[in-house]
Structures are given as C-alpha cells and as structure tokens.
C-alpha cells in the first residue's frame, strides 16, 4: 500500500498537490457518470423487460440504488471542484460497455452478473483510498454492488435450468463480455500510475483486468456457460 498520508477532509484535499486533486476528480467523475449511465441505459429500462412483478420491483429498487450511487459520487464531484460541464452526459462519451442496446431480460441479468462484478473490482480498489471521503463512499456503496451482482447471478441460475434459457444467457454473455475487460483501462496507463503513486488506487489496470477475467470465469462456469475469447490490446 502507498505510504501517502490519508486526506481526511475536503479542506485537506484542497491543500494537496494539483496532480493529486486532478487524479481524485477523474476517478470521482468517472464513477458518477458510470453509475448514472448504468441506471439510465440498463437498470431503469430493465423494469419493463422483467417477467414478473417480483423481478420488476427488484429491478426498480436496484435502479434506485444505482441512482443513489450516482448522487453520492456527484456530491463529492461538486465538493472537489469537478466542473458541471464535465458531469453532463451530453459532453462525455460513455464507456463502450454502456453502448450495448438492452433488448432482453436475460441480457440484463448477465449485465448485472458480469458488469456489476467489474464495478465491484473498481470499488474494491478504493476501499483503502488515501482520500477518506472517497474511501467512505466506496465502503458505503460496496454492499449494494455485491447485491446487484448476486441478483444477476441468482436470476441467471434460474434461467439456465432450461436449455432455451441457457442458450439465451450464453448469447447474452457472448454479446456483453468481450467489451467488459476494456472497463479497466489501457495497459501501462499514466493515470493509473498517478493513482497508485498517491495511494488513491491500489492495483494496475492489468492486475485488475486479469483478476476480473478470472472471477468472471469462476462465476459463469458453474452455470455451464463459457466466456468468449477476448483479444486484448498489446
């Protein structure tokens, strides 16, 4: 772990080097936008695709939790000086993972199972962040992120009980998973180096991506689902 001292308050944050402040703003902005995109393009539309009131209401609650994550990160973005135009979804292209059109309930369950697993890894990396307000949001958010991934897994377990259901889940995995490892950023990232230098994050993009791919594999294999091959940039 980095020896960088903990930064407990917004006032202390403002006394940090500009490079530290910029790094924190980038991470906070990224989480705020990703939570908003996820809620808008996946969670809220999934309510209509869900097959029963049970699944619809559960999806509704999950959507609200994702919006709440967005608000928590956005409040911190405001406090740390992220400019409002940087928080506008019209000005910031979403990650490729959010451009997949949501067309079926099976697809949504796979996105929760594998997409929220990726989010869990990102949040895990902030659990010991040197900037305490960000660390606290990560710790508050984590139990809900874990529930969301489990929600996806539980519904996928039900879906794969039939051959037709397994085929649909496999197709959804084939469509979603190849883009998911890109969620962890480029190898040899300069930004990531700065995050680790200041103890904001712990692991390199490569380490996180490898961990994600291993955990994704161990998640889907018991379901009789395979992960498609992914070509990573050199």
């Amino acid at each position, binding site marked *: 772990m980095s020896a960088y001292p903990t930064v407990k308050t917004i006032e202390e944050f403002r006394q940090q080097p500009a490079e530290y402040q910029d790094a924190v703003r980038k991470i906070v902005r990224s989480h705020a936008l990703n939570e*908003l995109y996820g*809620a808008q393009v996946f969670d*809220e539309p999934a309510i*209509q695709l869900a*097959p*029963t*009131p*049970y699944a*619809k*209401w*559960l*999806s*509704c*609650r*999950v*959507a*609200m939790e994702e*919006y*709440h994550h*967005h*608000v928590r990160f956005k409040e911190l973005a405001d406090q740390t000086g992220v400019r409002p135009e940087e928080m506008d979804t019209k000005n910031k292209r979403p990650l490729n993972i959010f451009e997949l059109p949501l067309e079926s309930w099976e697809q949504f369950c796979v996105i929760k199972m594998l997409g929220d697993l990726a989010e869990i890894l990102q949040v895990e990396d902030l659990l010991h962040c040197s900037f305490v307000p960000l660390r606290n949001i990560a710790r508050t958010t984590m139990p809900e992120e874990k*529930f969301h991934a489990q*929600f996806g897994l*539980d519904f996928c377990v039900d879906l794969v009980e039939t051959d037709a259901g397994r085929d649909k889940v496999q197709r959804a995995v084939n469509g979603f998973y190849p883009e998911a490892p890109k969620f962890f950023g480029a190898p040899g990232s300069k930004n990531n180096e700065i995050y680790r230098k200041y103890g904001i994050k712990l692991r390199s993009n490569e380490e996180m991506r490898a961990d994600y791919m291993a955990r994704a594999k161990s998640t889907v294999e018991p379901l009789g689902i395979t992960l498609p091959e992914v070509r990573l940039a050199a």
Partner: protein
Amino acid sequence: MSAALDEAWFSALGEPLGEAEHAEISAYLQGLGLPDLPVRAASSWQEAGALCRQPADAWWQAEEAERVRLQCSARLDPADPAWLQVTERLHGAAAVAAARSGCADAALIRVAAGAATSAAYQQRLAQAAGAPASHPFMRKYALYSGGRWPLGVYGERFAIF
C-alpha cells in the same frame, strides 16, 4: 415529497382489511379499467413473495399504459436527492417490517421497497400531471401509505398483503 417520509409504510401487513380499504381497492381497479375482483389477502412475507413471482401482465400493462399517458404531461427526475431519500425510507420501512415478522430475505425486502417506490413514483407523477385525488395511482398510494402492500392481479383475484 417530505410527507412521504412520515407515512405508515408496511405497518399493517397481514392485518384484516377494513371496509374503507376494500372500497379503495374497488375504486383503484375500476379506475384502471379492470373488473372489480375478489380480494386475496396474503398473510406472510413468504406468501407475498410467492404471489408476485407469478406473471401479472394484464394488470401491469394497465398501470403501464396510464404511466405512459401521464408522462406525456409530466416528467420526474429519478436522481433527485429528495426523491432518493424517500426511496431509502421505503427500503428501511420494508426491512423493519420484515424483521418484525422474522423475514431476513434481502431480495424480498428490496422487492417490497421497489413496489412501494414504484407506487410513490406513480403518485408523484399523477400529482405532477394534475390528476384528481380519485386517480387510481392516488388510490394505490393510499393503500401503501396506510401500511399495505398491494401485490396486483393474479388470475381472477386482486392480491394484497
């Protein structure tokens, strides 16, 4: 919106229904253009969970058509912090009610919270669109805010916990 924080959410689950509640249910169904159906009263969280795991497409679509109609004249921000505070209150109330009944099913508690969230959203939407107090979304909200969990129409019966 702050009034929603003080309602009696999930406080009357499993209790016998009163005449006024029966009348509210009838008016709610009539307002949605559904027939006045017999009522099935669920008596436990497990029974409520099992009921709402069944499809209820006709009822859901009737509500959905009305939601879409109202959204032509009013829009709400789902990320409004004051609204999110209400949704947290609903989750808390569902968790407390479940704990009192010995139910520790985290998913089912979220299902109940999501149902109440959906009802509160529909009520806010109806209000924003200038709908009268007799609107079916207002009537459903009255059942929720009085401590019930209306579960929907399954087969030929309206279920409520």
